[in-house]
């Protein structure tokens, strides 16, 4: 049994909100740099080179990479041998977001009610997903999600008869409809299987996987590569202004599903695919 004071959760989440909004992970950094080197369109190359400058300014001057510092999506992978003390864990998580967005000069983009739309002024509440794991570790992933790309995400309740071709069409449809709105080059998170909500959650979590690693299921890894190639032949390009780099990666997660269904969720992320990861 390991005991963790909830104030430690607050402190880590505060720092991680600030970190994720100013620095990309190394795999994203490398993917964007490689894209800048290989892009064929002159205008596309200019856009990608601006993104390189943007990342440099963000980390050196501590200006958020993007003004949409997102809604804070937080994955908590909690070992079942962990005991939290000192207060309510969920309150501690929201408090970390509140402190991070306030002290870190991050934009407050959350409204308290979807229709009445009054800003909560501290970017809370966060969106929190808990997973219980074996052991005594706590893994925290803070993934601020901007809504330019979130708004272009889709869910398709396909039929089993639609098969793999149906899945490919669904993903390509979502990406092409998103086009310039989702700030390409994008990262495409996909969930296949499960239920309506399970596939959406898998698609979101797939965005936090490295863009350099393929699925460990061989046919899924092949599907990820085939779709990435197809997406990059669409011509959409950086900023949607034409080019050979439309996506940096397609990350697909799968789960068993019902005999009658084939749910597919496509969660699109812009090139500012942010997440900070820590283990306590």
């Amino acid at each position: 049994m390991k005991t963790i004071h909830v104030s430690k959760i607050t402190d880590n989440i505060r720092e991680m909100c600030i970190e994720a909004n100013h620095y990309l992970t190394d795999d994203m950094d490398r993917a964007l740099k490689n894209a800048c080197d290989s892009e064929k369109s002159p205008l596309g190359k200019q856009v990608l080179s601006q993104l390189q400058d943007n990342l440099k300014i963000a980390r050196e001057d501590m200006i958020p990479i993007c003004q949409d510092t997102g809604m804070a999506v937080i994955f908590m992978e909690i070992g079942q041998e962990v005991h939290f003390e000192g207060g309510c864990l969920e309150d501690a998580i929201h408090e970390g977001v509140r402190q991070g967005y306030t002290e870190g000069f991050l934009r407050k983009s959350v409204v308290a009610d979807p229709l009445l739309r009054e800003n909560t002024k501290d970017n809370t509440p966060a969106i929190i997903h808990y997973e219980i794991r074996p052991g005594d570790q706590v893994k925290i992933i803070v993934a601020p999600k901007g809504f330019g790309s979130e708004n272009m995400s889709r869910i398709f309740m396909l039929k089993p008869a639609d098969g793999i071709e149906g899945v490919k069409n669904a993903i390509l449809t979502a990406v092409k409809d998103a086009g310039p709105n989702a700030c390409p080059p994008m990262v495409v998170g996909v969930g296949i299987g499960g239920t309506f909500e399970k596939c959406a959650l898998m698609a979101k979590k797939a965005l936090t996987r490295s863009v350099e690693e393929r699925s460990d299921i061989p046919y899924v890894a092949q599907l990820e590569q085939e779709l990435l190639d197809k997406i990059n032949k669409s011509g959409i390009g950086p900023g949607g202004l034409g080019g050979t780099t439309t996506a940096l990666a397609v990350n697909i997660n799968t789960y068993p599903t019902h005999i009658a269904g084939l749910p597919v969720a496509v969660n699109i992320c812009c090139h500012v695919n942010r997440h900070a990861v820590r283990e306590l």
Partner: protein
Amino acid sequence: MDQYIKAPVSAEEIAKLHAGDYVYITGTIYTARDAAHKRMYEALQKGEPLPIPMEGNLIYYMGPSPAREGRPIGSAGPTTASRMDKYAPSLFDLGLKGVIGKGKRSQAVIDSIVKNDAVYFAAVGGAGALLSKAIKASSVVAYEDLGTEAIRRLEVENFPVIVVVDKDGNNLYETAILEYRSE
């Protein structure tokens, strides 16, 4: 081609701009996004005056992150323009000459741009830190209670944008894709 324009803009300057041009804007522009557009639209419906001048002006669809001490503004990149499609034509009809955002526009907005000899620019989405460097001053001029969505007057110097829809209705998002499509 690269072009340099002053804001507010003249009809002559707009006429020189073509889809695909890289344009550097220097002068005064205004910010407004979802909530400010809704308020301006409601003001017009009630016959009330708008809080900022439209004639010859440019609106930047942007809501910044907070400024650190000693800086005019925080991160300041464009937001998705299509959410303003409902409101844009009535502002173009009042003399608004251009808007800066990112992403596709509706046919009604493109028709309004052509009818009013206006222009739609894109700034690079997600490059908010870089774009903030071209903003030299910022002040809230209306709807302060909207926070990041308040209307701001910005003084910009060589603010980089790309012409997506020009006054003749040429649309870079449609033409540029064809050039690199290899399906």
